[in-house]
C-alpha cells in the first residue's frame, strides 16, 4: 500500500472516527426514515385526493388543484422548506424542523403524485366510466372499482421514481437543523476534523434507499406484467 492510498483511507475510511461517531449518525438515520415514511404516506394520500378532485371535472375543484400542482412543482423543495420554517413563525405558526420538512416534502410529493395518478386516470378510455355508470354504479363506485385500480397500476412507475426522489430530499432538512443523516454526519465531520462521518452517512443512505429502490423495481415489474 503506497502513501497516497493510505492517506485516502485515513481521510475517508478512518475506523477510529467511524467508531466514535456512527451512533450519532445512526440516530440521524432513524429521523430520515421517520420523515421519509411520513412524507410518503401523507404525500401519496394527498396526491390521490387531489387527483380525484381534479377528475370530478368541476372547475372549482379542478382549477385550484392544477394551480397548486404547477406552483409546487415549479418551486425548488428547498425553497418551500425554508419558506415554511422561517416564514410561518412570522405568521404566528412556528413549525419544528421535523414538521416543516415533512410538510414541505409532502406538498411536493402530493403535487407529483397527483400528476401521475391523474395521467393514469385520463389515459383510460372514456368507455370505462360509461360502462360502469350504465350498470347503475355511482361516480364514486365507478372510480373505486373500475377506474382507480387501472389508473394506479399505470401510475406505479412514475410514482415510485418520485417517491424515491422526494424521500432522498429529506437531506434538505439539514438546512433547517433537522437531525437527519446528512446534518448529523456534517456536524460529526466538523467536530472530528475528518470527513469519515460523511462516508458513514453515505453508507447509511444506501442502507435506507437501496431496499426502497429494489422494492420500487419489483413493483414496476409487477405492474408492467399485469398491463
Amino acid at each position, binding site marked *: 500500500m503506497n502513501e497516497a492510498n493510505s492517506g485516502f483511507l485515513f481521510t475517508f475510511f478512518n475506523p477510529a472516527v467511524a467508531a466514535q461517531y456512527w451512533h450519532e449518525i445512526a440516530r440521524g438515520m432513524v429521523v430520515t426514515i421517520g420523515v421519509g415514511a411520513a412524507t410518503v404516506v401523507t404525500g401519496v394520500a394527498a396526491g390521490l385526493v387531489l387527483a380525484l378532485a381534479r377528475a370530478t371535472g368541476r372547475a372549482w375543484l379542478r382549477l385550484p388543484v392544477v394551480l397548486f400542482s404547477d406552483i409546487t412543482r415549479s418551486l425548488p423543495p428547498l425553497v418551500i422548506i425554508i419558506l415554511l420554517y422561517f416564514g410561518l413563525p412570522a405568521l404566528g405558526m412556528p413549525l419544528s424542523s421535523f414538521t416543516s420538512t415533512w410538510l414541505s416534502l409532502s406538498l411536493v410529493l402530493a403535487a407529483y403524485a397527483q400528476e401521475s395518478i391523474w395521467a393514469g386516470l385520463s389515459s383510460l378510455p372514456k368507455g*370505462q366510466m360509461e360502462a360502469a355508470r*350504465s350498470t347503475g354504479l355511482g361516480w364514486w363506485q365507478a372510480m373505486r372499482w373500475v377506474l382507480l385500480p*387501472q389508473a394506479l397500476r399505470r401510475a406505479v412507475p412514475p410514482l415510485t421514481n418520485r417517491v424515491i426522489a422526494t424521500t432522498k430530499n429529506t437531506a434538505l432538512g439539514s438546512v433547517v437543523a433537522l437531525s437527519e443523516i446528512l446534518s448529523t454526519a456534517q456536524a460529526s465531520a466538523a467536530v472530528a476534523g475528518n470527513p469519515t462521518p460523511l462516508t458513514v452517512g453515505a453508507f447509511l443512505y444506501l442502507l435506507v434507499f437501496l431496499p426502497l429502490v429494489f422494492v420500487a423495481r419489483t413493483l414496476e415489474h409487477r405492474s408492467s406484467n399485469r398491463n
Partner: protein
Amino acid sequence: MSAPILELVGLKKSYGSQEVLRGVELRVRPAELVCVIGPSGSGKSTMLRCCNRLEEPSSGQVVVDGQDITRPDTDINRVRQSVGMVFQHFNLYPHLSALENVTLALRRVQKKDRAQAEAIARDALTQVGLGHKADAFPAQLSGGQQQRVGIARAIALKPKVMLFDEPTSALDPELVDEVLRVMRALREGGMTMLVVTHEMAFAHAVADRVVFMDGGVVAEQGTPAEVFENPREARTRSFIGRYMDAKSASPA
C-alpha cells in the same frame, strides 16, 4: 296493444349550436326488437345514449316503464339497472375476469353477496355461451367473446329493456354471427331490445320494427318488409338501396 316500455317524446340534443337530435319520437313495446338504421351522423347513437342519460337530452322526455327519467329528481342509478347497455367497443373492465365484470354491479349496486352474485353471473355467461370462460380476462378473449361478456354484464341485472350501440361494428366479420346469434336468442326469450346497427341483414331478418333515422329525426319506420322492400321516403330508398343491391347481387 301494450303500453310502451320505452318512449321518446320530442327528444332534442344540441352540442353548442349543432343540433344532433331534432325532436325524436319513438315507442318500444315490451318484447319488441327495434332496429335503428341510418347514415352516420344521423343521431342514432346519441338517441340511444339519451335513453339511459349517458347523454343529457337538451329537451323532450325519455319515459322508461312509465317514468320520465329526464326529471331532475330521478334516481338515475336505479333507472340504469333496468336499462342495460351494450357498447360498440365492449368496454369490459380489463383488470377483472369475465365473471367479475358481470358480478361488479350485482355486488356493488344490487348489494348481493358474493355467492349469489356469482351464481347469477354464471347463469348470464352460460346464456351467452361463455360459461366455460368465467375466469378468463378480457385480453384473453376474442372480440366476439368480449362482446358476449358485455351482453352478459347487462342482462345479469335483469333489465326491462336493452340498448345496443352498434354491437358488431368493431368485430371482425367472422365474429359477427356469434354475437347476432346471442341477440336472436335474447329476443326469443322475450327481451325488449333497441338496437342501433349497420347489420342490415340482421335488421331485415330479425327486427319487429325498423326505424330509419336521418338528420336527427325518425324519417321512416315500419316492419322490415315495409322499410326494406317498399320504403316511402326517397332518402330511405337511397340508404337502403346499396344493401338491397348487394343482396340481390349475391343471393344468400
